[in-house]
Protein backbone atom coordinates (compact mmCIF):
# COMPACT_ATOMS: atom_id res chain seq x y z
CA UNK A 1 0.00 0.00 0.00
CA UNK A 2 1.49 3.31 -1.07
CA UNK A 3 1.22 5.98 1.58
CA UNK A 4 1.38 9.72 1.17
CA UNK A 5 4.70 11.41 0.48
CA UNK A 6 6.21 12.28 3.88
CA UNK A 7 6.71 15.98 4.41
CA UNK A 8 10.34 17.02 4.29
CA UNK A 9 11.98 18.06 7.56
CA UNK A 10 12.36 21.78 7.93
CA UNK A 11 15.78 23.06 7.04
CA UNK A 12 17.71 24.49 9.98
CA UNK A 13 19.02 27.14 7.59
CA UNK A 14 15.54 28.49 7.01
CA UNK A 15 16.09 31.71 8.98
CA UNK A 16 18.64 32.89 6.44
CA UNK A 17 16.37 34.55 3.93
CA UNK A 18 17.91 34.37 0.51
CA UNK A 19 16.16 33.79 -2.81
CA UNK A 20 17.13 30.15 -2.70
CA UNK A 21 15.79 29.56 0.83
CA UNK A 22 12.58 31.35 -0.12
CA UNK A 23 12.24 28.98 -3.00
CA UNK A 24 12.97 26.09 -0.68
CA UNK A 25 10.24 27.29 1.69
CA UNK A 26 7.77 27.27 -1.18
CA UNK A 27 8.72 23.74 -2.12
CA UNK A 28 8.48 22.55 1.47
CA UNK A 29 5.08 24.17 1.88
CA UNK A 30 3.82 22.58 -1.30
CA UNK A 31 5.17 19.19 -0.23
CA UNK A 32 3.42 19.46 3.08
CA UNK A 33 0.09 20.34 1.49
CA UNK A 34 0.46 17.46 -0.95
CA UNK A 35 1.35 15.13 1.92
CA UNK A 36 -1.57 16.28 4.06
CA UNK A 37 -4.30 15.98 1.48
CA UNK A 38 -3.00 13.98 -1.43
CA UNK A 39 -5.96 11.69 -2.19
CA UNK A 40 -9.70 11.99 -2.64
CA UNK A 41 -12.72 9.73 -2.55
CA UNK A 42 -15.17 10.69 -5.30
CA UNK A 43 -18.78 9.57 -5.63
CA UNK A 44 -20.22 9.58 -9.16
CA UNK A 45 -23.77 10.08 -10.31
CA UNK A 46 -25.79 6.97 -10.95
CA UNK A 47 -29.37 7.39 -12.19
CA UNK A 48 -30.38 4.20 -10.32
CA UNK A 49 -29.81 5.34 -6.76
CA UNK A 50 -32.53 7.25 -4.94
CA UNK A 51 -31.52 10.72 -3.77
CA UNK A 52 -32.85 9.96 -0.29
CA UNK A 53 -30.71 6.82 -0.17
CA UNK A 54 -27.50 8.63 -1.16
CA UNK A 55 -28.18 11.30 1.47
CA UNK A 56 -28.81 8.64 4.13
CA UNK A 57 -25.56 6.84 3.24
CA UNK A 58 -23.57 10.10 3.52
CA UNK A 59 -25.23 10.90 6.85
CA UNK A 60 -24.82 7.44 8.33
CA UNK A 61 -21.39 6.47 7.06
CA UNK A 62 -19.54 9.81 7.20
CA UNK A 63 -21.64 11.25 10.02
CA UNK A 64 -22.28 14.42 7.99
CA UNK A 65 -25.04 16.72 9.19
CA UNK A 66 -28.13 16.54 6.98
CA UNK A 67 -27.38 19.87 5.28
CA UNK A 68 -23.90 18.76 4.19
CA UNK A 69 -25.09 15.30 3.14
CA UNK A 70 -27.84 16.84 1.00
CA UNK A 71 -25.48 19.39 -0.54
CA UNK A 72 -23.03 16.65 -1.56
CA UNK A 73 -25.86 14.45 -2.85
CA UNK A 74 -27.15 17.36 -4.98
CA UNK A 75 -23.63 17.99 -6.25
CA UNK A 76 -23.38 14.35 -7.34
CA UNK A 77 -26.79 14.65 -8.96
CA UNK A 78 -26.26 17.94 -10.81
CA UNK A 79 -22.50 18.01 -11.48
CA UNK A 80 -22.04 14.27 -11.93
CA UNK A 81 -19.59 13.83 -9.07
CA UNK A 82 -18.60 15.09 -5.65
CA UNK A 83 -15.49 14.78 -3.49
CA UNK A 84 -16.78 13.21 -0.29
CA UNK A 85 -13.47 12.85 1.56
CA UNK A 86 -9.80 13.83 1.36
CA UNK A 87 -6.86 12.30 3.17
CA UNK A 88 -4.28 9.59 2.82
CA UNK A 89 -4.66 6.94 0.20
CA UNK A 90 -5.42 4.09 2.55
CA UNK A 91 -8.29 6.00 4.19
CA UNK A 92 -9.71 6.95 0.79
CA UNK A 93 -9.61 3.33 -0.37
CA UNK A 94 -11.39 2.36 2.81
CA UNK A 95 -14.15 4.93 2.13
CA UNK A 96 -14.48 3.89 -1.52
CA UNK A 97 -14.76 0.24 -0.52
CA UNK A 98 -17.53 1.22 1.90
CA UNK A 99 -19.31 3.22 -0.84
CA UNK A 100 -19.14 0.17 -3.14
CA UNK A 101 -20.65 -1.84 -0.31
CA UNK A 102 -23.58 0.60 -0.29
CA UNK A 103 -23.89 0.30 -4.07
CA UNK A 104 -22.58 3.76 -4.92
CA UNK A 105 -20.18 4.37 -7.80
CA UNK A 106 -17.00 5.69 -6.21
CA UNK A 107 -13.35 6.11 -7.21
CA UNK A 108 -10.03 7.02 -5.59
CA UNK A 109 -7.84 9.68 -7.15
CA UNK A 110 -4.93 11.92 -6.36
CA UNK A 111 -5.99 15.43 -5.42
CA UNK A 112 -5.28 18.04 -8.08
CA UNK A 113 -2.72 20.54 -6.83
Amino acid sequence: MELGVPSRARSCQAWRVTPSTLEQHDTELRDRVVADVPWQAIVWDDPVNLMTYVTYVFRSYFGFPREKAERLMMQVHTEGRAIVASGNREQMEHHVQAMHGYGLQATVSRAET
Partner: protein
Amino acid sequence: MIVAGLGGGDGIRIVLETEEAMLLSELADQVDSVLLLGEADDPALGRLLPNAYPEDLEASDEFTRYTRESLVDGKRQAAQSVRDATAVEHPDDGVVQIELDQAQAWGWLTFLTDLRLILAERVGLDDDEDDADVETRDDYLRAAYEWAGFVQGSMLEVLDPIKP
Protein backbone atom coordinates in the same frame (compact mmCIF):
# COMPACT_ATOMS: atom_id res chain seq x y z
CA MET B 1 -46.48 -3.30 1.16
CA ILE B 2 -46.44 -1.24 4.32
CA VAL B 3 -43.44 0.08 6.26
CA ALA B 4 -43.82 1.40 9.79
CA GLY B 5 -41.49 2.38 12.60
CA LEU B 6 -41.19 0.14 15.62
CA GLY B 7 -42.32 1.52 18.95
CA GLY B 8 -38.84 1.95 20.40
CA GLY B 9 -37.85 4.15 17.47
CA ASP B 10 -35.01 1.84 16.52
CA GLY B 11 -36.03 -0.40 13.69
CA ILE B 12 -38.89 -0.92 11.28
CA ARG B 13 -41.67 -3.33 10.45
CA ILE B 14 -42.37 -4.32 6.86
CA VAL B 15 -45.65 -5.97 5.94
CA LEU B 16 -45.70 -7.71 2.57
CA GLU B 17 -48.49 -9.46 0.71
CA THR B 18 -47.65 -13.14 0.24
CA GLU B 19 -47.05 -12.57 -3.49
CA GLU B 20 -44.76 -9.63 -2.77
CA ALA B 21 -42.75 -11.68 -0.27
CA MET B 22 -42.41 -14.53 -2.78
CA LEU B 23 -41.28 -12.12 -5.49
CA LEU B 24 -38.72 -10.50 -3.20
CA SER B 25 -37.42 -13.88 -2.05
CA GLU B 26 -36.99 -14.98 -5.66
CA LEU B 27 -35.25 -11.74 -6.64
CA ALA B 28 -32.93 -11.96 -3.62
CA ASP B 29 -32.00 -15.49 -4.62
CA GLN B 30 -31.19 -14.26 -8.13
CA VAL B 31 -29.01 -11.43 -6.83
CA ASP B 32 -27.14 -13.97 -4.72
CA SER B 33 -26.65 -16.13 -7.83
CA VAL B 34 -25.33 -13.21 -9.89
CA LEU B 35 -22.78 -12.53 -7.14
CA LEU B 36 -21.85 -16.20 -6.80
CA LEU B 37 -21.81 -17.23 -10.45
CA GLY B 38 -21.52 -13.97 -12.37
CA GLU B 39 -19.07 -13.98 -15.24
CA ALA B 40 -16.23 -11.51 -14.82
CA ASP B 41 -17.40 -9.56 -17.87
CA ASP B 42 -21.03 -9.35 -16.71
CA PRO B 43 -21.79 -5.59 -16.84
CA ALA B 44 -24.17 -5.97 -13.89
CA LEU B 45 -21.25 -7.11 -11.72
CA GLY B 46 -19.40 -4.00 -12.87
CA ARG B 47 -22.24 -1.95 -11.40
CA LEU B 48 -22.11 -3.82 -8.07
CA LEU B 49 -18.33 -3.83 -7.87
CA PRO B 50 -17.15 -0.69 -9.65
CA ASN B 51 -13.62 0.10 -10.72
CA ALA B 52 -12.03 2.25 -8.00
CA TYR B 53 -9.20 3.37 -10.30
CA PRO B 54 -10.52 3.75 -13.87
CA GLU B 55 -7.26 5.37 -14.99
CA ASP B 56 -4.77 3.15 -13.22
CA LEU B 57 -4.91 -0.52 -14.18
CA GLU B 58 -2.34 -1.64 -11.63
CA ALA B 59 -3.96 0.17 -8.69
CA SER B 60 -7.34 -1.05 -9.89
CA ASP B 61 -6.22 -4.69 -9.85
CA GLU B 62 -4.68 -4.28 -6.43
CA PHE B 63 -7.84 -2.66 -5.02
CA THR B 64 -9.91 -5.49 -6.45
CA ARG B 65 -7.59 -8.09 -4.98
CA TYR B 66 -7.89 -6.60 -1.49
CA THR B 67 -11.58 -5.73 -1.47
CA ARG B 68 -13.52 -8.01 -3.83
CA GLU B 69 -13.98 -10.94 -1.50
CA SER B 70 -15.32 -8.96 1.43
CA LEU B 71 -17.57 -6.83 -0.81
CA VAL B 72 -19.05 -9.92 -2.46
CA ASP B 73 -19.48 -11.57 0.96
CA GLY B 74 -21.29 -8.53 2.36
CA LYS B 75 -23.61 -8.25 -0.63
CA ARG B 76 -24.35 -11.99 -0.65
CA GLN B 77 -25.12 -11.95 3.07
CA ALA B 78 -27.53 -9.05 2.56
CA ALA B 79 -29.28 -10.87 -0.31
CA GLN B 80 -29.47 -14.11 1.64
CA SER B 81 -30.91 -12.41 4.72
CA VAL B 82 -33.65 -10.83 2.58
CA ARG B 83 -34.30 -14.16 0.86
CA ASP B 84 -34.62 -15.95 4.20
CA ALA B 85 -36.72 -13.24 5.87
CA THR B 86 -39.19 -13.25 2.97
CA ALA B 87 -39.51 -17.04 2.76
CA VAL B 88 -43.25 -17.69 2.99
CA GLU B 89 -44.01 -20.38 5.57
CA HIS B 90 -47.76 -19.92 5.86
CA PRO B 91 -49.13 -18.84 2.48
CA ASP B 92 -52.68 -18.85 3.87
CA ASP B 93 -51.92 -15.94 6.21
CA GLY B 94 -52.01 -13.59 3.24
CA VAL B 95 -49.24 -11.37 4.60
CA VAL B 96 -45.67 -11.72 5.83
CA GLN B 97 -44.54 -9.45 8.66
CA ILE B 98 -40.86 -8.73 9.07
CA GLU B 99 -39.19 -6.75 11.86
CA LEU B 100 -35.76 -5.29 11.21
CA ASP B 101 -33.35 -3.55 13.53
CA GLN B 102 -31.12 -0.77 12.21
CA ALA B 103 -28.35 -3.11 11.02
CA GLN B 104 -30.78 -5.50 9.33
CA ALA B 105 -32.52 -2.55 7.68
CA TRP B 106 -29.18 -1.51 6.18
CA GLY B 107 -28.86 -5.00 4.74
CA TRP B 108 -32.21 -4.54 3.04
CA LEU B 109 -31.34 -1.06 1.76
CA THR B 110 -28.08 -2.23 0.22
CA PHE B 111 -29.71 -5.36 -1.20
CA LEU B 112 -32.46 -3.26 -2.83
CA THR B 113 -29.76 -1.02 -4.31
CA ASP B 114 -27.83 -3.98 -5.71
CA LEU B 115 -31.05 -5.46 -7.08
CA ARG B 116 -31.94 -2.22 -8.86
CA LEU B 117 -28.41 -1.88 -10.28
CA ILE B 118 -28.69 -5.38 -11.76
CA LEU B 119 -32.21 -4.83 -13.09
CA ALA B 120 -31.22 -1.49 -14.66
CA GLU B 121 -28.35 -3.24 -16.41
CA ARG B 122 -30.51 -6.13 -17.61
CA VAL B 123 -33.39 -4.07 -19.00
CA GLY B 124 -33.09 -3.38 -22.67
CA LEU B 125 -29.78 -5.17 -23.12
CA ASP B 126 -31.15 -7.30 -25.94
CA ASP B 127 -33.23 -4.54 -27.42
CA ASP B 128 -34.99 -6.26 -30.26
CA GLU B 129 -38.28 -4.46 -30.70
CA ASP B 130 -39.88 -7.27 -32.67
CA ASP B 131 -39.23 -9.84 -29.99
CA ALA B 132 -42.37 -10.08 -27.86
CA ASP B 133 -40.67 -12.34 -25.30
CA VAL B 134 -37.93 -9.84 -24.67
CA GLU B 135 -40.47 -7.06 -24.34
CA THR B 136 -42.51 -9.03 -21.84
CA ARG B 137 -39.39 -9.85 -19.88
CA ASP B 138 -38.33 -6.21 -19.90
CA ASP B 139 -41.76 -5.12 -18.69
CA TYR B 140 -41.42 -7.55 -15.78
CA LEU B 141 -37.91 -6.33 -14.96
CA ARG B 142 -38.99 -2.69 -15.18
CA ALA B 143 -41.91 -3.32 -12.85
CA ALA B 144 -39.60 -5.08 -10.38
CA TYR B 145 -37.15 -2.17 -10.64
CA GLU B 146 -39.85 0.40 -9.87
CA TRP B 147 -41.28 -1.69 -7.06
CA ALA B 148 -37.87 -2.24 -5.41
CA GLY B 149 -37.39 1.54 -5.53
CA PHE B 150 -40.79 2.01 -3.92
CA VAL B 151 -39.90 -0.40 -1.09
CA GLN B 152 -36.56 1.31 -0.53
CA GLY B 153 -38.10 4.79 -0.63
CA SER B 154 -40.77 3.73 1.87
CA MET B 155 -38.13 2.32 4.21
CA LEU B 156 -36.12 5.55 4.01
CA GLU B 157 -39.19 7.65 4.84
CA VAL B 158 -39.37 5.79 8.14
CA LEU B 159 -35.63 5.38 8.82
CA ASP B 160 -34.66 8.94 7.85
CA PRO B 161 -37.74 11.13 8.06
CA ILE B 162 -37.27 14.59 6.61
CA LYS B 163 -38.37 17.14 9.16
CA PRO B 164 -40.27 20.10 7.74
